């Protein structure tokens, strides 16, 4: 198994990509801390799926846009697991898109506080623990295709995601020689809805209902949480040891494509 005995904390793991990562990490031998802002049946379900894979699953409710809650979450995680080997920065709120002239200061702050400030301080705090522990570690943040191109009404989200690409570069350099690698995965159109009991993936997007995906994605399917979790697994295992400061697109070729042509 690729992550035997590793201790991994996944933010925003209540459903979707975060859940996929948590469960597939557990299947590869990791104990997993499940973070989300709400403590409900779905959050608990992710933790119990970790348990069902034979690993320890703990729930850590915290608003990871606040540094004080990040600190409390990581204290709690380290208390329960003894150490932290892997941090996955994944938490995001639902209304990620907003028209330019409806973007007020409060929305901007909410986006930046979660997706940039929160990811940064969670990475900083985890790296501090990893350095103290010795033995390196892995920090991976969810970027997006929005870090590469602009779609209408997605500017603050895109700015935050582009910032994460640069953050991985900066932290790779700042943490040189510690054995910690810092990378991003940039997903394309991933179905992030709830999955059925016991399953990691919800059904993929129906291409007849989402014809733009068929037109724009060379792989001609919607992505699934397991697509992202597979790439995460690679990066967080020893196999990804020499990948550092990098952002990997997992988008079915969406970004390769320039646009419709007749």
């Amino acid at each position: 198994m690729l992550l035997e005995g590793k201790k991994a904390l996944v933010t925003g793991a209540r459903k979707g990509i975060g859940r996929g990562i948590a469960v597939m990490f557990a299947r590869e031998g990791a104990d997993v801390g499940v973070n989300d802002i709400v403590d409900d049946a779905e959050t608990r379900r992710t933790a119990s799926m970790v348990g069902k894979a034979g690993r320890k699953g703990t729930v850590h409710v915290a608003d990871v846009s606040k540094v004080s809650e990040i600190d409390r979450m990581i204290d709690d995680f380290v208390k329960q697991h003894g150490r932290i080997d892997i941090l996955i920065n994944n938490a995001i709120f639902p209304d990620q898109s907003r028209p330019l002239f409806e973007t007020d200061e409060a929305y901007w702050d909410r986006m930046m506080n979660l997706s940039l400030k929160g990811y940064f301080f969670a990475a900083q705090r985890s790296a501090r623990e990893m350095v103290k522990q010795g033995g390196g570690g892995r920090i991976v943040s969810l970027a997006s295709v929005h870090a590469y191109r602009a779609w209408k009404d997605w500017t603050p989200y895109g700015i935050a995601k582009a910032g994460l690409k640069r953050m991985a570069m900066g932290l790779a350099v700042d943490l040189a020689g510690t054995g910690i690698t810092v990378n991003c995965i940039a997903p394309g159109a991933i179905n992030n809805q709830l999955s059925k009991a016991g399953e990691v993936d919800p059904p993929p997007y129906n291409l007849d209902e989402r014809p733009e995906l068929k037109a724009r994605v060379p792989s001609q399917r919607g992505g699934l949480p397991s697509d992202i979790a597979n790439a995460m697994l690679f990066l967080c295992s020893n196999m990804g040891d020499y990948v550092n400061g990098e952002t990997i697109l997992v988008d079915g070729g969406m970004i390769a494509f320039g646009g419709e042509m007749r």
Partner: protein
Amino acid sequence: MVLGGKSGGAEIRPAGKGLFGGGMNLLTGKKALVTGARRGIGGEIARVFAENGADVGVNDIERDGEAEKTLAAVKKLGRKATWHQADIGASAQRERMFDEFLKEHGRIDILVNNAVRAQMTPFSELEEADWDHQIGHALKGYVFCAKRAANEMVKQGGGGRIISISSVHSFRAWPKDTIYGIVKAGLNRLVLSMAVDLAGTGITANCIAPGYIDSRVLTADQEPNRGGKGYADHAIPLIPARRGGLPRDIANMALFLASDLSSYVNGETILVDGGLQAGGTPD
């Protein structure tokens, strides 16, 4: 090649059975052709693919002791190893290589474009012959190997994987690397077009961009120090990982990209450079 029942997504195995668990047979029964696989990165990719259950065609321009070692390693892992001597820059040899591979293996699931001989020349001394030679081999050769492989994969049905070895030289310039850099930048761009033009075939096309990789021929007792002191010592302070890369680092990424784990990675170039490209110029 694209797995997974109803979804077409990556395979989800039952709890307790890891994706990589039980011997990591990520390429069971696949037929892979690796160019420039006599030794170094290509040789290691051949080994790692064989470890994961693939039969491997080994291409290079000469069959020497190193080539024999690679072929023997694949066979020792219980997989079929075939030798395909060809200069991928020469169209007749290239086509013959594919004909032979298909005759031996019946099909092709994975192509790794890796063969290269870098020639470093200062810009002001570039000769047209150097340009023609390097572009003809490392760019044109890769393009037409990829085209032939893709056409076979489409004919077979079931998709496939085409992986090309690019370089950090595709992103930044080092002294005397003009042609090499252009070739590698061209490969990054090639996979964008392959992803788009091969849309819906289940074939993915991607590049790996290695940084400093210690692919020297070493004796068994020197092997533990591969990537360590004595290799690119001047560069280590610029590499956040603080070591030289190993052929195995690249082979691991090639394995990921060749496997079903990466079925949604397409048209992408992935750096495997220990963080070299993340950093700016030295202080």
